């Protein structure tokens, strides 16, 4: 999956000496050691695999960082400039690469980014059945409840949503599912005959166009965080379309204190909250809560 993007040497070490199933992130920073996040913990990448010792670590040069970004864009930076402006590139294998560098602004608009100095390669995982424990509390009597997956970054929200889409398509054939994939990383391994996808569109446009043109029963989308995202969900809800989304927050309590979510939570649009954490590694399932924030499972 990463061989197209990573330098051969790094890829060979990762492939032969590291358990890639446990790797969440690979961070390359110019003239700094390569950092690999394995099961939620950071290590350096050395000749013999991951190591805690900085003396044995491999370093990323500017050429390496630039080459990773160049390769991630399929050697065509110009074709992914819209993504780069938002700070990331997603490869055709749904590997999201966050990019650090100089943002070029013109008349108040971001034009592009150059002088790349770091990148964060997020390794997508398909964890089969990871959403099953919550599934029965979200889908019942042929109804899918509006659900929000809540967790801090890198705790497995996207993996959960991905598996949920898969489970839904395997168990309930009466649903047309729309994956609204704003960053292009949600649709990795979702092998379904009942799933449509709109990629790289904002929530507002994706929800409006998707509901109008694809008539979905449920929309699954990643990382809501802006007022227009909330409005899009309220619009879907008013159209009778169910929504499953994720949000960055360490708990439901913290989430309820965020101003932009106050109305949607007060209106009880979301009937279920699935909380994930990193307590026992990414994807630790903390429980399912109802619209009154009472825990109903676990």
């Amino acid at each position: 999956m990463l061989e197209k993007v990573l330098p051969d040497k790094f890829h060979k070490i990762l492939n032969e000496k590291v358990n890639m199933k446990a790797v969440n992130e690979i961070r390359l920073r110019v003239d700094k050691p390569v950092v690999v996040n394995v099961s939620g913990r950071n290590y350096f990448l050395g000749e013999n695999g991951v190591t805690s010792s900085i003396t044995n670590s491999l370093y990323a040069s500017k050429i390496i960082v630039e080459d990773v970004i160049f390769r991630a864009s399929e050697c065509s930076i110009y074709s992914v400039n819209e993504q780069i402006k938002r700070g990331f590139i997603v490869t055709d294998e749904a590997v999201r690469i966050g990019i650090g560098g100089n943002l070029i602004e013109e008349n108040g608009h971001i034009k592009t980014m150059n002088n790349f100095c770091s990148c964060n390669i997020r390794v997508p995982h398909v964890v089969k059945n990871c959403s099953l424990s919550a599934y029965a509390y979200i889908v019942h009597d042929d109804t899918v409840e509006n659900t929000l997956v809540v967790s801090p970054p890198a705790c497995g929200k996207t993996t959960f949503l991905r598996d949920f889409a898969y489970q839904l398509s395997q168990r309930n054939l009466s649903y047309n599912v729309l994956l609204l994939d704003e960053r292009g990383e949600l649709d990795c391994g979702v092998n379904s005959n009942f799933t449509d996808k709109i990629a790289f569109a904002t929530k507002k446009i994706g929800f409006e166009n998707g509901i109008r043109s694809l008539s979905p029963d449920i929309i699954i989308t990643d990382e809501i965080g802006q007022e227009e995202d909330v409005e899009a969900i309220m619009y879907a809800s008013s159209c009778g379309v169910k929504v499953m989304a994720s949000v960055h927050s360490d708990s439901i309590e913290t989430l309820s204190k965020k101003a932009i979510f106050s109305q949607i939570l007060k209106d009880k649009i979301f009937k279920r909250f699935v909380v994930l954490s990193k307590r026992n590694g990414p994807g630790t399932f903390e429980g399912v809560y109802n619209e009154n924030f009472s825990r109903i499972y676990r």
Partner: protein
Amino acid sequence: MKYVLILIIFGLCTFVGYLFSLKYLRRKKFFNSLIAFADKLSLEINFSRERLKILIMNFDENNKKNLLDIDKKFVDFLDKKCELNEEEVFKKANILTAEEKNMVFMFLKTLGRSDVENQTKEIQNFLTRFQDLKNKCDEEQKKYGSLSLKLGIVVGLFCAIIMF
């Protein structure tokens, strides 16, 4: 037998002259096709924003033939099959001078490395330089291309007369 030998020597001299003139023709064709290539890239990058590899693969075959396999080597690099180095890229391009090779190599190195606006500017910049080289090649071909062929014929005739 003598006449056959004279004919063979005359033919050989003419052929050598033709080979020399061919070099100038191939150089001219190379720069013509390179300009067409850069032009197409500039246009497509602006409008379709299609991936570089696809743009190169879709470039028309007639022009590709004149590019001395440089396009193939570049696609190999894009596919991560080899490094991008001058020696490898210009293996079959012995008709180019070191300076020309360097310029074409710089052009290849900039491809796919920036946003639409900057990429277009860079290509346009190289197009101007390629155009200059093409004009130089046109002149060379007019001057030395036909001269080589004529010289070949003259030398052939000279040999034939001596042998006769």
